């Protein structure tokens, strides 16, 4: 535990010691505003909810989160730090979890900084703040899922560009499998229960149900399981790739 908290603190500190943090936060805030108000017509809809705001988060994360995740391990390997880290008397899983938590908290900070949207909507109308809190939670979990995938792929390569592209592609597949158009396509030739299985592997399906305010244990355990599996895979990949 002591190790994990030391790693989290060091990592978070390093985000803010480099321009990464500021660039990410500014872009995230601007883009989430643009998507919500310009494409989502948050204001013109005349409804007091943040659905247009949260609906675009998966697509925003699709490019921004892999950019945070790509450096998690690729950079350590590239700079040769990995040799230092792996020869300290610290369990490998502590590194994996510590670095992941730091990145997750970092995205969480960016997410919290979108609070003016919540303030505005409360000023304009009378939204269901319970749903908004649930949606934030869902958005945070979604970011965690993307980060865990990115962590694993970053561990697999020294090259940050490759890590970025692979993460975008895999995350996109996980989103796509819940997209109504894709599901309708599968519906043409697959029985309903198979389509449900495909839909249930999707980030989008679970995210959508949380943002509707439905707090189902299944959705939470889906994200927890996804994060756990990909982080464990990160530890395995790290062990495998140490030699090169």
């Amino acid at each position: 535990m002591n190790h994990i908290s030391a790693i989290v603190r060091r990592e978070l500190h390093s985000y803010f010691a480099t321009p990464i943090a500021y660039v990410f936060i500014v872009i995230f805030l601007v883009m989430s505003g643009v998507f919500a108000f310009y494409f989502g017509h948050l204001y013109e809809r005349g409804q007091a909810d943040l659905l247009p705001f949260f609906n675009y988060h998966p697509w925003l994360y699709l490019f921004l989160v892999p950019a945070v995740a790509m450096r998690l391990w690729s950079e350590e390997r590239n700079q040769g730090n990995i040799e230092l880290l792996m020869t300290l008397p610290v369990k490998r899983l502590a590194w994996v979890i510590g670095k992941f938590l730091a990145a997750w908290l970092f995205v969480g900070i960016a997410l919290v900084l979108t609070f003016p949207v919540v303030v505005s909507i409360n000023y304009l109308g009378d939204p269901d703040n319970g749903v908004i809190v649930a949606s934030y939670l869902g958005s945070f979990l979604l970011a965690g899922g993307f980060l865990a995938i990115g962590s694993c792929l970053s561990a697999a390569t020294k090259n940050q560009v490759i890590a970025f592209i692979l993460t975008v592609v895999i995350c996109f597949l996980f989103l796509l499998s819940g997209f109504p158009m894709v599901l309708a396509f599968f519906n043409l030739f697959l029985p309903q229960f198979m389509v449900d299985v495909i839909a249930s592997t999707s980030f989008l399906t679970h995210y959508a149900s949380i943002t509707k305010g439905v707090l189902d244990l299944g959705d939470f355990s889906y994200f927890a399981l996804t994060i756990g599996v990909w982080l464990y895979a990160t530890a395995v990949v790290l062990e495998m790739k140490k030699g090169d």
Partner: protein
Amino acid sequence: MIECSHLSKHFGPVKAVDDLSFTAQQGQVLGFLGPNGAGKSTTMKMITGYLPATSGQIKVCGIDLAEDPLAVKNKIGYLPEGAPSYQEMNVGSFLQFIARMRNIPASSQQSAVDSVVARLNLNHVYYQKIDTLSKGFKRRVGLAQAIIHDPEVLIMDEPTDGLDPNQKHQVRELITTMSKNKTIVLSTHILEEVHAVCDRAIIIANGVIVADSTPNEMEVMSRYHHAVSFVADLDTILLNKIKNMDCVRDVTYSARLKETTVFPTQGLFIFDEISSLLKQEGIQVTSLKMEAGRLDEVFRNITKPVQNKEVHR
């Protein structure tokens, strides 16, 4: 103490390290020598628990690495090649981070950091970002993180590579002062370093130990051992006269430096003969010295592939 027995590491079909066995005792500074790609770094990476060995056993302070890697890592201080560290951190917080990761109790973390900062003269750069430091300072930061927990075993991959002569001297002094109660293993390309700090040298070539002895013993293996060099104007007649002496095996003459080197027949001591001959002939000599032996020549000879080894006459 480090015990390696029958250590091998294969990368696919390549045998980077092949059946290596050696023991390093406490209080000993062991130098790993060898050409690039000989397996020095790979061996160190296996001892520190970074790379798993393909086969063989490693014991550090009596603990088997395969059974309890964390306990072994706790005993070792390691300076990887190129002294990697977090470039965006400042020296102080980097060392504090390492102190925490090294399981130093919270109450003594700061004193551990202060002590290595003082020993490596890092006071002036304590609040400076690591990527703004010169190569010499970066190396010292790397050394500081390796010794912060006062490890029983210290492993350093090319600790003085890229340092200027003053910095090299400083690092070597530090190694010598630490060597009394530690087991130290270091790899190097610089042969003078072996003389300066090592009690024992192991030469590795193609993953195999080709020599294991003290630096002095290695010098005896050199053609230059007890050779006599002098600088003077010589004519060919005199040169031939020296060459034909019974105790002389060979003579080389460098026209550029006006330096003559006389090699003795194996094991003979010819300094007196040569100096009295020069006196007899009335030659003006600007310098006259006896060589101890040249490690670089020994090194080249034993690490060269077998077919083009210099033949000793």
